[in-house]
């Protein structure tokens, strides 16, 4: 049985309701777009340099120790009131690894964590500097499978 040989017998009664639903959703999206969305992009703070070293190197699945160093343009250490790290994999659906840094020397912070999976990660450093500025940096890192 097919209706290929029949003219459209009745108008589509859901046309108006479906159109209204679609237009409402578009309107909602536009309204949300009009709201000012707080940017979560990395704060440049161009005068602060962040470097890090990972042990073992290259980074591999399992426990790891990361040492971050904050310095200014002259190479002097930049102290921070707090130092935190969030490590996300690049793909959705993995809970991040959260760790706080411990100051081991002026401007030098150590983080102990465990890579839960090999692959590509993004490390997001969030530090509250002693001068009151907030530093946020995103650092890509590839973690190799366990040797």
């Amino acid at each position, binding site marked *: *049985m097919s*209706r*290929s040989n029949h003219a459209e017998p009745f108008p*589509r009664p859901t046309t108006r*309701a*479906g159109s209204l639903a679609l237009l409402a959703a578009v309107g909602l999206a536009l309204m949300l777009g009009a709201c000012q969305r707080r940017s979560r992009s990395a704060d440049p703070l161009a005068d602060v340099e962040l470097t890090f070293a990972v042990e073992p190197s290259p980074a591999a699945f399992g426990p790891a120790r990361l040492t971050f160093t904050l310095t200014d343009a002259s190479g002097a250490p930049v102290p921070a009131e707090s130092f935190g790290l969030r490590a996300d994999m690049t793909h959705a659906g993995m809970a991040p690894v959260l760790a706080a840094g411990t100051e081991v020397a002026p401007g030098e912070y150590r983080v102990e964590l465990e890579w839960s999976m090999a692959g590509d990660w993004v490390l997001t450093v969030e530090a509250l500097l002693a001068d009151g500025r907030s530093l946020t940096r995103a650092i890509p890192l590839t973690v190799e499978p366990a040797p």
Partner: protein
Amino acid sequence: MPTPDAPPAPSPRFDLLRIPWIGRALRWRWSRLVLQGLFLIVAALVLYDGLTGPQLAPANSATVLVWVHYRGFVALALLLAGNLFCAACPFALPRTLARRFGRPGRRFPRHLRNKWVSLAGLFLIFWLYEWLDLWASPMLTAWLVAAYFAGSFLLEAIFSESPFCKYVCPLGAFNFNYATASPLIIAARDPNVCHDCRGKECLRGSHAVSGCGTELFVPQIRSNMDCVLCLDCSRACPYDNVALVARRPLAELTAGNWPQRWDRAFLVVGLTFFALSNAFGMVPPIRAVQAWLQDHFGLNSDGVRLLVLFAVGDVALPALTLLGAAWASRRLTPRAARPSMKSLASRYVPAFVPAGFGLWLAHYGFHVAVGGLTIVPVLQAFLLDHGLAWLGASPDWSLGALLPLEWIFRLQVAAVLGGFFVGLAVLARSALRTGLPPAQALRQLLPWALALTLVTIAALSIFNLPMDMRGTVRGSG
């Protein structure tokens, strides 16, 4: 009084549409639109957050909702009920606008009225997924969703018979395929009523409700293929004669009336191999294979290497498996009772439905189990970005797994083996229905059993490997 050529009287069956409250809600004229509206809001969120939100996949609702939750829950829905996601699909909503502003009425080209187009779409989606790291890109995920809306709108504006759903949509192809094993199916309550019906409103529509968008005729429905479970048939029927009934497990897979079409057969086998390649793309050996292709064939482009891999894994291998098993099965059948290869394929490929589903469930279930709760902090952060603290003053990024991680591999193995053994059961029942002596029936199914076994071994090997997810981050932060 039934006439001699009338269908038999109905036997009582569980009918979901007769359950108090649930049945009424499902048959309510606006129930589908409400569901579609909810999913449209989700799609709007995916578009908005994907295009404007943080481009870090675990922190963006676009990637979390699409690649974790949608994939996992669609598999569960197919297993427990049926094609619920097609029923609630927001991509079908542009159809109403398209028909208002377009000029539908043309028939989809005859030579495209099969599953090859949707198979090509599946190939394209999976290749793009690996090449462009879609799972790691909220923006590309949002553009993929936008492309679905645009594709649906365009096709519905030109053609009748819901060609986007029936012939094009890769998601639909996946859902239709595995819905053939789902426990619920549309059926006529009393076939005698359909026999005497003149209006055929379930197909042609009534003054208030559209008829079946994919042009399925209720009394002739024997398969969930092409049924989007919209329930328009039940709403349109003036005799309240449409039911959503439970059916015997594996009924459709062992009924012996699977259409003799190579596109349908390849869809089943192909999707099984897609499951393998999709999982293979997340384990370390993929990089060794890619390096080998680069060293030996000079394939420096990641996209080209993946194209080669997919051509082999998702086209050549399933084709060889399908044709090889059909050929061998035919050779193992006594000449006097030897059917065609196409006939043998239609008889035995349904066994790949539970086997393939087991692989998808193991893979998609893994992602939901490991990261199902990550949507909570993602939504918390989304609201806070807009100055709303409805879900708390700070996101709880410690939320992640739905199940203990030590359970995951065992559940994956259970899903894969469960699909394998159900697949073997389908093979056995299908073989015994032929009427061949048991020994001959066993010989006939052997090539198919071997194919299922090899696929299962490959799947278990892949799932036993540690994951190694690589993905390019575009503008992380």
